[in-house]
Structures are given as structure tokens and as C-alpha cells.
């Protein structure tokens, strides 16, 4: 049973190493084989992860494996499935792009696989050491991915900015972890009920189970700042637009969904017990009770600044970067309300967000493969040139805005309800106001595509744009997921609730 639990990780690791080895023997057009091998490995791992779902649902995998370094609760398995699906779609989008831009295919594929591995480790552990190792595995692979367009000066710039802020964030997270370790007395994170017992001093051991709640509170605040860097919360967001704009577009798609969702999974793992626990008396209890307020302030700042700055962007990758900052703000609302339902809403929103954001990026990559630029003005008259691409982008944007019956609507609705139920209606109202602001920049692109006639035929980009099979498949998968996640809202919300119940 133990080895079954980490089978997805083992497959991904094996495939990554295999691709690096295989790459030595590939030349010319055969380099695509590296991408195909990676796709096969990810698909196999996805099947392995899906097969764990029933057992995880029955709670058979929750037991601590390898001294609690690995857990297989529903939360872990759900997020592993998400990460593998994200890796699969990103790799499908990337194969043509990598070939066209002459990026090293073997390295690219292996790095995506290793980043996915790190993300799975982050979600699948209750121990600070493994969460840290997963975080760094993802981060180090991501730094290299950002700079993989070696002939593009902007790619190098994106890599150096991403690296310097990422390394700084890791150091802050680590310092927070060291204080949490001092405060908790172990690197293992408690779940909500164990934490409440420990803080009350009613643990099984005679000694106080939490040596120093104050250290714990300070450490958690540092962790908020460090993870804030990683998921680009305002005011820790300044690196994100530059890194997103300069990185190769499939890598940008990956950054905006993969490592971000993984960091949120880690945030849920670390903070959920402290958010939903019973109040503790004393000054330390008050310090811990401040956490939801910190998240609320960050949520308001992040969604407002993200949406307002997105309004003035002319580059679509940069616009989507600010849009993804704003979406991180919406997700924080679920943490700020600090109820089990809020946490479940966060989980559901991460699934919806992954589908719709990858859908939008799929169209950008599709068009970019045919020479369309990344400026919003390059999309003028697109409905005539590429009606399918334009329609697909509209569907993705409808979901990103949050219009029914798409997944984006249900995600926002769920967060909204959680906020209202927790008597934080003001936060819900701010969310709706922000959604209204966001219509502005999404609609600007739609207007360019449908209402602006192309200045002169073939002025900016020429000819129709047929989709290659891989990009077409990836785009279809994401768009179907956007609609299916919406239609399957009830069972998925229940699943998210069960998954977060074990935190």
C-alpha cells in the first residue's frame, strides 16, 4: 500500500530521468519524442493517482507513512490529480512551441516533470521538511524554465527576477518554518483537532505539547509573507508581471496555474488547522486569531490592485499576469473567512481557475505559434481570421469573469456564499465590485476580436490559423473542463469539503 501511494511520484520521477537520458540520442525533428515520452509518463501517473481516489475517499491511506513524511488523504490525492492534469495540458501546449522556438526539448520536458513532482510532494505531506523540499524542487525547476529561451534577452531577465525574488521568498518561508518548528516542537504539522488539544495543554504527554505559541504565531506570519511572494499577493507581487511576460508562453501558463495552486495547497495544509481551530485564550491565542484578518487585508489589496492595474495593460501575457494576481485575491477570501466551507471553496476555485486560465493561455499559445503577437492590439479582427480561436478565448474569459454556467461562476459563487455565511458580507461585496472591474480588461480583448475591423488584411499577422492536434486537444480539454466543473459543481464541492475536512 505504501508504494502504491507514491506511485504517481515514482512514475513522474522515472519519466523525468528517462527523458534526460533519451534526449542524448535525439536529433532534429526526433526531439519531439522527448515531449511525447513526458506526456505518456504524466498520463500514466494521472491514471495511478485517479486509482488512489476511492481508497483515499474511504480514508484507508490517511495513516502516517514513512514517519508521517507522506500522507494520502483525499486532499493530497485530489491535488495530485490536479497537478498531473495541469502538467499534461501544459506539455501538450508546449511541444509545438518548443520545437518552433528551438528550445531544448529534453530539458524542457524533464523540468516540467520535476516541477510537477515538487508540487505533488507539497500537497502530499504533513511535514515541514517535505513541504520545503517540494517547494524548492518546483521553484528551482521553474527558475530554469523561465530562462529557457536562451536567445531572448527578456527570457533571461524574467529568469533572474523570478530567481532573486523566489530565493528571497524561500529564505523567508524557511525562517518562518524554523520558528514554527521551535514553537510546535516538531516538523510535523498537526491537524485541527490535535492542534486544539496541544494548544490547550491537554496533549497526551505531560509536558506542554506546544512549547511556545508565541514563536508559532511569529513564524506563521513570516510564512504568510513568504507564501505571499510565491503566489504573488499584493504587496509581494512586483516580480510576477515581469516574470510572466518574459518567460516562454507555455511556461507562463504553467507558472500562473501550477506552482501557484501548489503553493495554495501548502498554505491550506499549514494554515487550515490554525484557521478553523477553537479560540485559545491569552496573548498567544490573540496573535493566532489575527491570521484571518491578515488574509482579509491581503485579499482586498490583492484583488483590487490586480484588477485595477490589469485595466491598463497592453500585453496580453502581462494582462493575464495581473488577472492571475486578482484571482489569487479571490482565493484568499476563502482563507479569510476561516470556516471549513471557506477552505472547500478555495479548493474548488483552484480547480476551476486551473481549467479556465489554461484555456485562455492555450489560445494565446495557439495564435503565437502562427505568428500573432502578444499585444492586445494584435488581436484586432481575430474573429474573421480565426473564428474558433476567438470563440474559445471568449469562453475562457466568460469563466474568468464569472458568468454562469461556467466553472468560474460557481467558484466565485461558492466563495461568496462562504463569506456571507461567516458574516463577512463586506468582503463578498468587494469581490463582486472587483469582478465588475475585471469585465473591463477582458472585454477590451473581446471588443478587439469582434468589433474592431482588421486595419488592413494581413497587416499584423497573415492567414488562417489551423490548430495542431496537440494544441487543439489541450484547448478542448480545458474548455470541456471549464463547463464540466461548472455542471458537476455539487459533487465536486462535496469532494472539496471532504478533502478539506481532514486538514
Amino acid at each position, binding site marked *: 500500500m505504501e508504494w502504491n501511494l507514491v506511485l504517481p511520484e515514482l512514475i513522474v520521477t522515472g519519466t523525468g530521468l528517462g527523458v534526460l537520458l533519451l534526449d542524448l540520442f535525439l536529433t532534429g525533428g526526433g526531439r519531439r519524442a522527448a515531449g511525447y515520452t513526458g506526456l505518456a509518463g504524466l498520463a500514466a501517473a494521472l491514471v495511478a493517482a485517479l486509482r488512489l481516489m476511492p481508497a483515499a475517499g474511504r480514508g484507508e491511506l490517511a495513516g502516517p507513512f514513512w514517519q508521517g513524511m507522506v500522507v494520502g488523504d483525499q486532499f493530497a490525492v485530489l491535488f495530485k490529480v490536479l497537478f498531473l492534469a495541469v502538467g499534461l495540458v501544459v506539455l501538450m501546449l508546449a511541444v509545438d512551441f518548443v520545437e518552433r522556438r528551438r528550445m531544448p526539448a529534453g530539458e524542457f520536458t524533464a523540468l516540467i516533470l520535476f516541477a510537477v513532482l515538487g508540487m505533488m510532494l507539497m500537497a502530499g505531506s504533513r511535514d515541514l521538511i517535505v513541504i520545503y523540499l517540494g517547494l524548492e524542487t518546483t521553484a528551482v525547476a521553474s527558475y530554469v524554465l523561465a530562462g529557457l529561451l536562451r536567445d531572448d534577452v527578456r527570457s533571461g531577465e524574467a529568469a533572474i527576477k523570478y530567481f532573486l525574488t523566489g530565493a528571497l521568498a524561500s529564505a523567508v518561508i524557511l525562517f518562518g518554518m524554523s520558528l514554527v518548528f521551535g514553537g510546535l516542537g516538531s*516538523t510535523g504539522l498537526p491537524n485541527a483537532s490535535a492542534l486544539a488539544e496541544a494548544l490547550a495543554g491537554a496533549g497526551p504527554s505531560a509536558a506542554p505539547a506546544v512549547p511556545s505559541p508565541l514563536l508559532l504565531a511569529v513564524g506563521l506570519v513570516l510564512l504568510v509573507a513568504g507564501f505571499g511572494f510565491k503566489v504573488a499577493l499584493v504587496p509581494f507581487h512586483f516580480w510576477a508581471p515581469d516574470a510572466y511576460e518574459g518567460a516562454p508562453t507555455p511556461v507562463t501558463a504553467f507558472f500562473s496555474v501550477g506552482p501557484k495552486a501548489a503553493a495554495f495547497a501548502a498554505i491550506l495544509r499549514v494554515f487550515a488547522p490554525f484557521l478553523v481551530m477553537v479560540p485559545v485564550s491569552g496573548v498567544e491565542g490573540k496573535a493566532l486569531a489575527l491570521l484571518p484578518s491578515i488574509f482579509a487585508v491581503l485579499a482586498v489589496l490583492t484583488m483590487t490592485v490586480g484588477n485595477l492595474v490589469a485595466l491598463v495593460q497592453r500585453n496580453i501575457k502581462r494582462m493575464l499576469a495581473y488577472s492571475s494576481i486578482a484571482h489569487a485575491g479571490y482565493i484568499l477570501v476563502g482563507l479569510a473567512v476561516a470556516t471549513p466551507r471557506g477552505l472547500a471553496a478555495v479548493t474548488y476555485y483552484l480547480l476551476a481557475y486551473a481549467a479556465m486560465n489554461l484555456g485562455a493561455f492555450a489560445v494565446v499559445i495557439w495564435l503565437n505559434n502562427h505568428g500573432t503577437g502578444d499585444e492586445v492590439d494584435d488581436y484586432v479582427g481575430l474573429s474573421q481570421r480565426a473564428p474558433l480561436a476567438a470563440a474559445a478565448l471568449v469562453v475562457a474569459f466568460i469563466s474568468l469573469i464569472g458568468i454562469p454556467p461556467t466553472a468560474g461562476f460557481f467558484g466565485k459563487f461558492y466563495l461568496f456564499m462562504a463569506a456571507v455565511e461567516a458574516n463577512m458580507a463586506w468582503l463578498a461585496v468587494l469581490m463582486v465590485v472587483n469582478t465588475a472591474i475585471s469585465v473591463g480588461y477582458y472585454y477590451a480583448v473581446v471588443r478587439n476580436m469582434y468589433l474592431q475591423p482588421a486595419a488592413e488584411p494581413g497587416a499584423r499577422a497573415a492567414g488562417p490559423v489551423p490548430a495542431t492536434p496537440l494544441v487543439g486537444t489541450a484547448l478542448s480539454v480545458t474548455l470541456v473542463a471549464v463547463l464540466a466543473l461548472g455542471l458537476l459543481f455539487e459533487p465536486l464541492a462535496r469532494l472539496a469539503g471532504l478533502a478539506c475536512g481532514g486538514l
Partner: protein
Amino acid sequence: MIDVQYAVVLGVLLFGVGLFGALRSTNAVRILMCIELMLNAVNLNFVAFARMLPQGSAAGQVFAIFVMAVAAAEAAVGLAIILQVVRQRGVAHVDRINLLKG
């Protein structure tokens, strides 16, 4: 035996020096060195706490070793990225790496 407080205070100071340097420097290599300083403060904390705690003391020391290993990997990747930028631009100063607005 030295009290754990002294070690933690030293750790906080070291972390502060590193953070200050990382935020104030403009040379990418110097920022990287300051981040290493912050990681050393983290290691000091871990080892100090591990000594203080009755149980789970091994975990802190193990964590410190992992931090060192990962920091080495991070520095290798970071220096490679800095080298690439220096080859393209001829500078390693972050305030002159400003092609992307922001």
C-alpha cells in the same frame, strides 16, 4: 550550555542583516550572497531549537542539512542564470536589467 535565546537572537540578527542586504544591493551576485546569509540564520535557528527541544531533536538537525543541500542547488542554478544574463547584457546589476517595465 548556552541558552537557546542567545542563539535565536543571533539568528534573528543574522537574518535581518541578510534581508537588509538582499533588499538594498543592486548586484545580483551580492543579493545571492545575502540570501545565503539568511539561510545560515535559518540553520542556526533549527540547530538551536533542536537542542532545546526534548523530543524531535533530530528533525531540526536533519532540516538544517537539507537546507544546506538545497541552498547549494539553488546557488548553482542562480549563478547559471546570472551568468546567462551577464553574457547577454554585460551587467549583473538588477537596476539596469529593466527591459520589461515594472
